[in-house]
């Protein structure tokens, strides 16, 4: 290098020697700058993502801690409003209770499968006949949308004679599979919207079915039930 420089004219040699540090600094700036700036950008993006996740998790934890008591009672009532299996038997029981409460006679109860599942909702159609006075029948029909599982009055056909009204009624009742997966832990969760809270209030106001728990019979256990 020195030999090469010595062969050059003095002015060129001195120019190279003076410009070399500047040239070196420019090269370093380019390489260090490229690495440094990409590293800084990468770190900033990682911090931003991490901060977002932290915010989401903090909000999620707050919601989970505050909503848990409402969620438990609400989920129980909502699961009875739209159960996971065909609720025809429960609806029939509820209709019988309503009929007794309103003093009407219910008969000819039939249940059939409804139309194919729409938006995850399965339908069963329950048809039946009720006899009673005009006021009793109207009151009975108006009560149908107040029972759980949720039922929709589809068709009504009425005839009246001798002070007794007979109504042939078709109602739809619904069920849907429960959700099978929960989203990843970093997925945000939102509190109930005002519309959802309103629907939940309606659900909580529905007439819940009575389930009777059958207990085992008391008494002595036969040690040899197949013996003589």
């Amino acid at each position, binding site marked *: 290098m020195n030999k090469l420089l010595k062969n050059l004219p003095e002015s060129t040699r001195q120019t190279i020697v003076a410009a070399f540090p500047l040239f070196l600094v420019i090269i370093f700036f380019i390489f260090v700058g490229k690495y*440094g700036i990409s590293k800084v950008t990468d770190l900033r993006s990682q911090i931003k993502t991490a901060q977002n996740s932290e915010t989401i998790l903090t909000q999620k934890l707050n919601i*989970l801690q505050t909503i848990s008591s409402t969620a438990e009672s609400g989920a129980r009532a909502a699961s009875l409003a739209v159960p996971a299996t065909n609720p025809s038997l429960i609806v029939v029981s509820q209709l019988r209770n309503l009929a007794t409460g309103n003093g009407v006679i219910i008969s000819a109860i039939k249940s059939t499968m409804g139309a194919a599942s729409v938006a995850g909702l399965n339908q069963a159609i329950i048809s039946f006949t009720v006899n009673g006075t005009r006021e009793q029948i109207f009151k009975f029909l108006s009560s149908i949308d107040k029972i759980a599982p949720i039922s929709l009055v589809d*068709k009504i*056909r009425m005839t009246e004679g001798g002070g007794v009204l007979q109504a042939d009624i078709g109602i739809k009742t619904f069920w849907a599979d429960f*959700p099978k997966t929960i*989203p990843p832990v970093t997925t945000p969760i939102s509190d109930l919207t005002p519309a959802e809270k309103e629907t939940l209030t*309606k*659900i909580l106001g529905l007439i819940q079915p009575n389930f009777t728990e059958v207990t085992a019979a008391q008494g002595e256990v036969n040690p040899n039930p197949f013996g003589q």
Partner: protein
Amino acid sequence: MPVKLNLLPPELAVSKNLSQLLKALRAMGVIGVAAFLAFGIGIGVFIIFSTVSLNGINASITRLKAQVSSQQKSEQLIILLKDRIAKTASVQSMPGSLVNLQAIEPFLLGLSGSSYINQMSVGPESLTLSVNLKTNTDLSTFIKSCQGSDVFKSVNLTSFNLSPATGYSVEITALKK
């Protein structure tokens, strides 16, 4: 008085202009090195602080994830609740016949005991009612109720008969509003 002596051989001497340029280049080199050092140290410090900060946030995320996972039962309940609420809202938005029945109810409950419903079919979109009215009062009450009511989109009188034995037989078709 000091005397300036140049003892360099004449072949090593450079012109005055080049000398100034070389001086400027040397100065720029020194400034460049200083700037580079400042830049390098700045980036290094920033990277160290950012890494420490990132590690702190990641530790916080790990702790929060554990806390959220411990509340998994609540999360399952909320997801179930929201799903059932959506399904309930979907059912409630479906058309039903009860609205039409509740709309016609005041017309019928105002009638006297001698008048009766001959036949009534109520569907989600419309209803057809055939009613036997024994007295003129019942007839006028019923017609006035139909005229004065705005609960239906339209009410059409499809049939009107008078029989001395059964009284007035009125049939209407009403469309949901």
